């Protein structure tokens, strides 16, 4: 189980959960609304040019750009093979 922000580029993973960093964390809620929910396939497609931030993540068939601090909230399981 690793944080989405630490996932290597082009490695497939499955979302485990999104953690709130504070009670009623609006960003975590937003991430869930955008499809970062348990069982959803994700993959890192690109990194920003400076300090590899933000991160471009493919979730389902949508690309979302998240800042590292946002992606830190998501824990994922790597999928091997394929």
């Amino acid at each position, binding site marked *: 189980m690793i944080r989405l922000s630490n996932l290597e580029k082009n490695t497939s993973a499955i979302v485990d959960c999104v953690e709130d960093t504070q009670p009623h964390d609006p960003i975590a809620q937003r991430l869930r609304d955008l499809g970062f929910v348990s069982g959803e396939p994700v993959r890192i497609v690109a990194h920003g040019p400076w300090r590899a931030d933000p991160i471009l993540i493919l979730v389902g068939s*949508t690309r979302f750009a998240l800042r590292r601090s*946002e992606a830190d909230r998501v824990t994922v399981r790597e999928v091997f093979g394929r």
Partner: protein
Amino acid sequence: MSSNTLRIALVGNPNCGKTALFNQLTGGRQKVANYAGVTVERKEGRFVTPSGRQVQLLDLPGAYSFDSSSPDELITRDVLLGRYRGEAVPDLVVCVADATNLRLHLRFVLEVTRLGHPVVLALNMMDAAAKRGIKIDTGTLQRRLGVKVVHTVAVKRGGASALIEAIDGSSADQKMPRTAERSDVRHSGDDVHAEVRALLAEAVQMPRATDERDDMLDRWALHPVLGLTILACVMFLVFQAVYSIGKPMTDAIGDGFGWLGAQAGAGLPDGPLRSLVTDGLIGGLGTVLGFLPEILVLFFFILVLEESGYLPRAAFLLDRFMLSVGLSGRSFIPLLSSFACAIPGVLGTRSITDPRDRLATILVAPLMTCSARLPVYALLIGAFIPTHRVLGIFNLQGLVLFALYAAGIGGAVTVGWVMSKLRGDGSEQALLMELPSYRMPRARDVAIGLWERSSIFVKRLTGVILALTVLMWFISTFPSPPDGATGPAIDYSFAGYIGRALQYVFEPLGFNWQISLSLIPAFAARETAVAALATVYGVSGGDSDVVSLGHALSGNFSVASALALLVWFAFAPQCMSTLAVIRRETRSWRNVGISFGYMFAMAYVASFLTYQIARLFS
């Protein structure tokens, strides 16, 4: 409004092609306004169905979810729930979903269907879906969702015919059949996700999660080195276009109004009325409309970049850098536009979703060196800075000009950073930005967007700017000089008095009363400072006289004063048109006050230091 007008609300995720569908349905018959108290646009259009039915179509802001705190999504939710005052509950909801991105969009569709309105689901971009081999079982979707499902291709002529047919066939009193098991109990998010998965498994076949073409383009466009190079080229092109297309048009408009003023002046007797018509009204109108070409060219490119999907990519590349100075990646384009003119820059901040980021961008945008500062810079640099070679290759004049641009950018970085520290609430700014598929921009959508932007500018600002211009004319014309007066007329006017009074304020900066006076018309439009200085120094206007004006200036004040004046123009709160736009866009005089206040303080301190330091060396 007749009772048989059908009220339809158009809803959908951002990037579902809703606006293109709206344009397809209503053509040019649109009304754009703002929802009260917020800068969220309210777009309404009308059309008549083949059977002669009147339809009033409301384009609600794009939303990912109703469970949100963003102002636009709250409006969409409240209108649909009938909680938005002054907005009737729609008779029918047309929910638009991108057929290539149903995994995301069906979630919102489910939220909408659960509100219990009659809903038609428009599966948009069916052509792109077919090309990618995506198969959608419409019958199953229709049955499972309990709503009518139609296919649309918003960007193709006649691509909305199935939707129009469905609208024609629906009727407000005969509600659509809805699935029985739907309860009014709020479903939890997980529930919606589970339902989406079940729907996808049953009704959608997708050979590949993404478009191969998008993946390939992104490998180039988002590459750390290549991506930034492409971005630099795009920006260079936009800038070139603004100067080579926009600027000549602006000059032509200025010349045209000058000619018009002369013609009108010839027909009027000499006196205040003539001066009001030629200098006040026609001159003022020329100033307002003179902004238009640059605004149009810039917005053309911004719209094309936005429609094509490149704009969020540019924001992605620059986000980390912009964040470090208290802004966001989305601030970049408006700030870049501000190098031409702060007005389109401020108008362009509408694409920044976070209200705090948007305000920060609006406040620093006027610090970018706009093209109106150039005539002033050119005059002063030409008159006071020698054409020395520095280090053998650089021209000192060029270096000073560069330093002034850099000062503006440095100022913006500092102000952005300070503001992010002062903001104080400490809550995290979110990026959470979708990068949509690349699309070919459509001429009609770009044209309608341009028309909207320019009519907003002309309709809502002409009055304010014209009024201020006439006021400016008034104080620099009255009272008229007494008989036998020797000095230029402006000496005896209110502006003259104000200039002399301002001299006490500006003396520590090394400004004499003539400079102080020229700052008053410069507040209307920076470039008029040159004309004002020409007037007070008794040099008749015209391009050929710039040299003689330069001589007059260098004979009348010191290099230290000139440098201080240059620095003043780099930071000073100008022009009033920009302040009027800030008022318009933020709907708050407080923000205008903040903008004016901080820029005045910054310009004053910087000019003061420049003058005092320069004096030590000279």
